[in-house]
């Protein structure tokens, strides 16, 4: 479960996230959409504890990210848009390292790794140094490392970038399966089709505020459009005042 309560994040004079309140129950697949500099990445960084909110709180699986960081992080997985991997390690070594950081038993690391590696077709690369892997393969390694400890909440920032259609499908299937089993999925993306296809609810952020939230159908109704989600997204974000030059919230 994710719970953001009156979250505010300011960078000097700029308000990157403005009074954001949101509750995502266990097992929900939530997609966060928004134009560039809407405050999505800032929200994610607060949620995973990389930055402190100016005001408000963020809870992961019932634990306050700032007050009980370790408890929250044990239940959380995060895949950033440009994941860091140790270049000189092999994927197997990296996955084992991640499992050990989460204090998983060796047998469990092996079992979970084998299952995920098989699904993402990573066997041929398990013994090769990560530095020699393609962008897509590195992304698959990062995703497997995030899923390994069976988190209660997973936060993904543009996870499909670099994945080929086959592995994008695999990821979607796994996320759907896990969310049915109780894992909360929080995904930030610009690919509206993914949100439309996968998400139980979609949130749209603009200029630091959550301007709309609901199912695809509800968003269409709210925007007064009938076609694809794109129409609703454009209508909802166009209705807002364009950001003033020089006061655009850039991802720090």
């Amino acid at each position, binding site marked *: 479960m994710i719970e953001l309560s009156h979250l505010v994040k300011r960078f000097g004079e700029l308000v990157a996230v403005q009074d954001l309140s949101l509750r995502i129950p266990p097992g929900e697949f939530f997609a966060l959409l928004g134009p560039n500099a809407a405050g999505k990445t800032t929200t994610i*960084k607060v949620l995973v*504890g990389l930055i402190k909110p100016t005001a408000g709180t963020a809870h992961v699986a019932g634990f306050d990210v700032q007050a009980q960081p370790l408890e929250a*992080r044990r239940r959380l997985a995060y895949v950033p848009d440009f994941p860091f991997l140790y270049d*000189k*390690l092999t994927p197997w070594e990296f996955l084992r390292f991640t499992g*050990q*950081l*989460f204090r998983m*038993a060796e047998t469990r690391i092996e079992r979970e790794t084998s299952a995920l590696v098989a699904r993402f077709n990573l066997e041929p690369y398990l013994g090769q140094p990560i530095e020699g892997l393609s962008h897509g393969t590195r992304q698959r390694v990062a995703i497997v490392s995030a899923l390994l400890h069976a988190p209660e909440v997973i936060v993904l920032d543009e996870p499909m970038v670099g994945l080929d259609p086959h592995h994008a499908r695999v990821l979607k299937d796994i996320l759907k399966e896990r969310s049915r089993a109780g894992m909360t999925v929080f995904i930030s993306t610009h690919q509206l089709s993914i949100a439309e296809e996968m998400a139980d609810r979609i949130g749209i952020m603009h200029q630091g505020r959550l301007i709309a939230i609901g199912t695809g159908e509800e968003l269409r109704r709210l925007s007064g459009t009938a076609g694809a989600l794109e129409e609703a997204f454009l209508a909802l974000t166009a209705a807002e005042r364009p950001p003033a030059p020089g006061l655009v919230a850039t991802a720090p």
Partner: protein
Amino acid sequence: MSARADASTRCPSALRLLLGVNARQSWRGLLGLRQQSRLLTALIGLFLAGYAALSFMLFHKGLRFAGSFPGLGEVLTERLLFLLFACLFGLLLLSNLVISYTNLFRNGETTFLLPLPIPPQTIFQWKFIESTLLASWAFLFLIAPLLVAYGLTQRVAWHFYPLTVALIGLFIVLPAAAGAYLAVNLARYLDRRAFQIAALLAAVGLLAGTALWLQPETVTDEQLETRVLAVLDRLLQRTQFAQFPLLPSYWLSAGVQHWAEGALRGAGFFALLLLSHALFFGSLMCTRMGRAFYLAAATVQSRGSVLARWRWFRRWQARRRAWRRGMGGLEAVLAWLPGLPRDVRALVLKDLRLFWRDTTQWGQSLVLFGLLGVYIVNLRHFSQQLTNPFWVYLVSYLNLGACALNLATLTTRFVYPQFSLEGKRLWIVGLAPLGLHRVLAAKFALASGCSLVITLGLMILSSRMLQLTWPRTLYLGAAIAVMTFTLNALAVGLGALYPNLKEDNPTKIVSGFGGTFCLVLSFLYIVVAVVLLALGSPWTRHGDQPAHVVALAWVLFLLLSGSLGGLPLRAGLRRVAHFEH
């Protein structure tokens, strides 16, 4: 869903895991270096061994020379030791500050580790260890030849060496702890730009302060002959700061000195002093910095410019934004230059802007040439004493060598990676109708032009300070001009021949085969060129040199420069003309 650790798990601690993973990374990096190129390994090995041998020889000769003055030898040797460790302490502190800041707050691993269930204290512990090692290894390498030379001149017992190593191990904890503490607090209150500017201003201030403090004094021949002790006392007073008893470098120097002299109780006292401080500050770092580190890391991730709180800064930023829409001062100057095509101008403008906005680049250049400038300006104090033509002759060639060595450091560090740094931008620069060979030629012209202004300026200044005649000034000016073009051509050419288009970090590009090769070739070239020019100088101690000797030396110098600069540049230009990317 499983959230807690598996019941039966006996996992190593997070710190041990991090140490293990990073040790494996480094070891594989070393192995990879060996597998990639034996020539590179041999070159690096040769270079390191050469440095160690040369510095040992110089330290040994220097200490023996200093020790040979009857009655004063011991005082001089002692002061040299204290002074050297005090200077190295300052350098270590600065190095730890910069490396800790980068390693803690501008590092992908930190951002990766922070959302994981690892206490910030553990992440800080690992980063503290890593920064200490990164900042201090060069220190150990630098002082090893000195300590061996010191041990040999003092005829110490074998146990002096392991004890000294142990003392140094304790000593490096102190600047490391101070550097990390400063880095965390500076990161919390200064943004990156403000931090860089502050660090640079501090370095320049220190430089200026040192230049002012160590200004030479005029000593008459009479004073030198009759009042040696008084003169020496005056000179040594300037270095008194090295013997301030609260400086950790004082404890190290005193410990080493006492042990060498067989005063074991005194040495033990200083060893315990170092040990207690290392333990105290080390344990503070290991137990008390986690929260401060997390707050600083969160602030660094959150912040725009810290200066934005002031209205003048916001106004200035707004005005800069407005300027950007127009031509800009630099572009207006370049547009004024005749015969510069618009596409080449755009490229030159881009390179100049990137250089100016990267504080590290101009900061290092400023410090290196600033140091040389301070030294050269101070030469005027010596010119009265340099009545012997031999010393004037020697100093002028040493200046030529020093200027070229400074330039070689900068061409390898900044000019060599220029082509590789275009790697991820080749989709625009490489596909432009300009052509990659013209891109490379423009980079060569820009780098040579800019560095020529500095090197030629310094050489003329040096000649004027030494009161050389204009023909001699022109002679040295011509020599440094040729060397400037050669060193730039070598760096640009090798940079294109050994590109690393995947890497964005210039220091990693430079540490590859091509960068090391460039540095070694540059240094060898400088040594051979300066020796050739000195041997073939038209002015000798015994009068004018025969014309054919001067001509031969210059022919050889030009041939060497032409081949070492021209050939790699030509090969590089040819390579990029058909470059596949």
